[in-house]
């Protein structure tokens, strides 16, 4: 049983590894992270003579965790959503589900292998942005002649774990949308619309419509930003980050960190469970 499970996991990781889209998304993700975390802020710093050395703070190695984490709930979520959609939705487009489902292991086990492989594949997404962020921050420190102070390794690890969880939840959203729509295009469209418009727009009503706040407290965005806040993300430390100033700015409401962790884990489990239930129940036409 375990051996056949590992075989299936190997197959799924092989499929993800051999897809160009996986690497394009990884490249886009790290590119966006560097662009909003380092390149744009540094270009602004260099072009504005009035900026003092304090403007560099967020771009230096010791601030790595908070600078990098700000991207996870926003464009990181969108990227993970697309990865989730593509990993399952493409199977509908290629009609390969019928090929897989006639191999023998059963739909539940096949889907489990897919989800575990997806969660594993998200690890390099979470790690790579930290790695590239480290390189970028060291380059900036060297260019500015500032002594490199390394961030606390424990905080970095917690940041990687928190970022991974956020991406996994968004990937699970993508998987569910792909299963519901039996494809990729509509799933990505709905997912992006939800990410950017629904959660964003309703969050803006918190101050004016009283009953909205309890709803927003359970939004992915609010809980994702709340999870990374104690680690310095979402302007928790510097007060000057992509979360408040960059694209997809988020200014609350924040929830308790434990609640955020629980809500995100429950989201991941419920979304995955719904996808599995649908996939097992529905006909493969």
């Amino acid at each position, binding site marked *: 049983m375990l*051996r*056949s499970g590992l*075989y*299936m996991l*190997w*197959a799924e990781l*092989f*499929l993800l590894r*051999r*897809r*160009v889209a996986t690497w394009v998304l990884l490249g886009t993700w790290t590119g966006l992270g560097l662009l909003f975390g380092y390149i744009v802020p540094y270009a602004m710093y260099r072009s504005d003579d009035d900026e003092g050395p304090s403007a560099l703070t967020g771009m230096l190695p010791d601030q790595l965790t908070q600078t990098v984490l700000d991207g996870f709930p926003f464009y990181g979520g969108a990227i993970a959503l697309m990865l989730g959609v593509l990993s399952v939705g493409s199977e509908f487009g*290629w*009609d*390969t589900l*019928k*090929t*897989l*489902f*006639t*191999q*023998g*292991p*059963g739909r539940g086990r*096949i889907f489990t292998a897919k989800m575990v492989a997806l969660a594993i594949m998200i690890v390099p997404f979470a790690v790579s942005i930290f790695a590239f962020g480290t390189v970028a921050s060291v380059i900036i420190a060297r260019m500015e002649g500032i002594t490199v102070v390394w961030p606390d390794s424990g905080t970095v690890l917690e940041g990687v774990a928190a970022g991974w969880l956020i991406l996994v939840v968004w990937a699970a959203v993508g998987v569910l949308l792909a299963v519901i729509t039996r494809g990729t295009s509509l799933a990505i469209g709905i997912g992006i619309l939800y990410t950017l418009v629904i959660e964003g727009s309703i969050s803006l009503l918190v101050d004016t419509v009283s009953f909205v706040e309890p709803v927003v407290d359970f939004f992915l965005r609010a809980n994702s930003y709340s999870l990374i806040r104690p680690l310095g993300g979402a302007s928790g430390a510097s007060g000057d980050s992509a979360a408040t100033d960059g694209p997809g700015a988020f200014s609350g409401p924040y929830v308790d960190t434990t609640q955020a962790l629980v809500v995100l884990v429950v989201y991941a489990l419920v979304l995955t469970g719904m996808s599995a239930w649908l996939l097992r129940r529905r*006909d*493969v*036409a």
Partner: protein
Amino acid sequence: MPDHTNHGPHVIETRDLTRRYGEITAVDTLNLTVRRGEVYGFLGPNGAGKTTTLRMLLGLIRPTSGGIAVLGSSPGSAGSLARTGAMIETPAFYPHLSGGDNLRVLARYAAVDASRIDLVLDQVRLLDRAGDVFREYSLGMKQRLGVAAALLKDPELLILDEPTNGLDPAGMTEMRALIRELGQGNRTVLLSSHLMHEVEQTCDRAGIIAAGRLVAEGTIDDLLGEDALVVRAEPTLDAMAIARDIAGVRRASLVRGAIRIKTLPGAELDPAYLNARLVGAGVAVRELRLERASLESVFLDLTNPNELPARGDWPGHPDGNDTIHDEEVADVA
């Protein structure tokens, strides 16, 4: 459903299998029986319900009602799928992977030793193109890869849906020979096709499906029946009565304005004698010819949507009998 053991006579058995899509009945109370070790042809025109049936046999879609037993298990169960190889409709593979890599993925899923990959690729003559990307394969190569994938598990039951689609004549001949070869020994092959000669050349038994209903089932010889004498004469009803009176005539039926006469096994009807009897009775004979039995004519007769026979009208049907039915003369008017 009856409890089948691995050594039971029936590899596939359906009981009143029905699948509806809203108002449309794609498969209608289908009773199909495939025996161990045979090559069974599942013949029907496009849209007759063949692929829907095969999907139900593999557990890809659920029946609306009725029962299915595949290798003694329920359809789509791990027990039946582990011993079944299938290719349904167009072969579906990962377009960005090579043929070999596609089979590697499937071998992992099926927990099959990787050494079988080259073996099955060689069987379908695709070994030298195993490294090519699937999306660049021709339709014929895709079909052959589909068959290779179906063979990967060295299955007891092989379900092939139109496997010669897209193959050139030489490829078709090779594929049919391969199917025949695969059907040797204890392996059972269920071959779905709309090509009569393919089924005639390849299969031991066949079932004919039309509008979701099994309209005939039996050995190819049973389905072919005997040669028939075809007569066009006036008045038609008089000619029909005379033909029925002749000793040895088993059946005289009216098909598209012509009388089709079949004899009892072993009996022969001399066309000259029939002609003399008709002319002697004042019947004007316009045409008298011998019609050689072919699966094509049986198939066309059975699957013509405007002339679908009542159940039991045809030899080989489970409910079949040899009596002449009133409906056979109904279209005289």
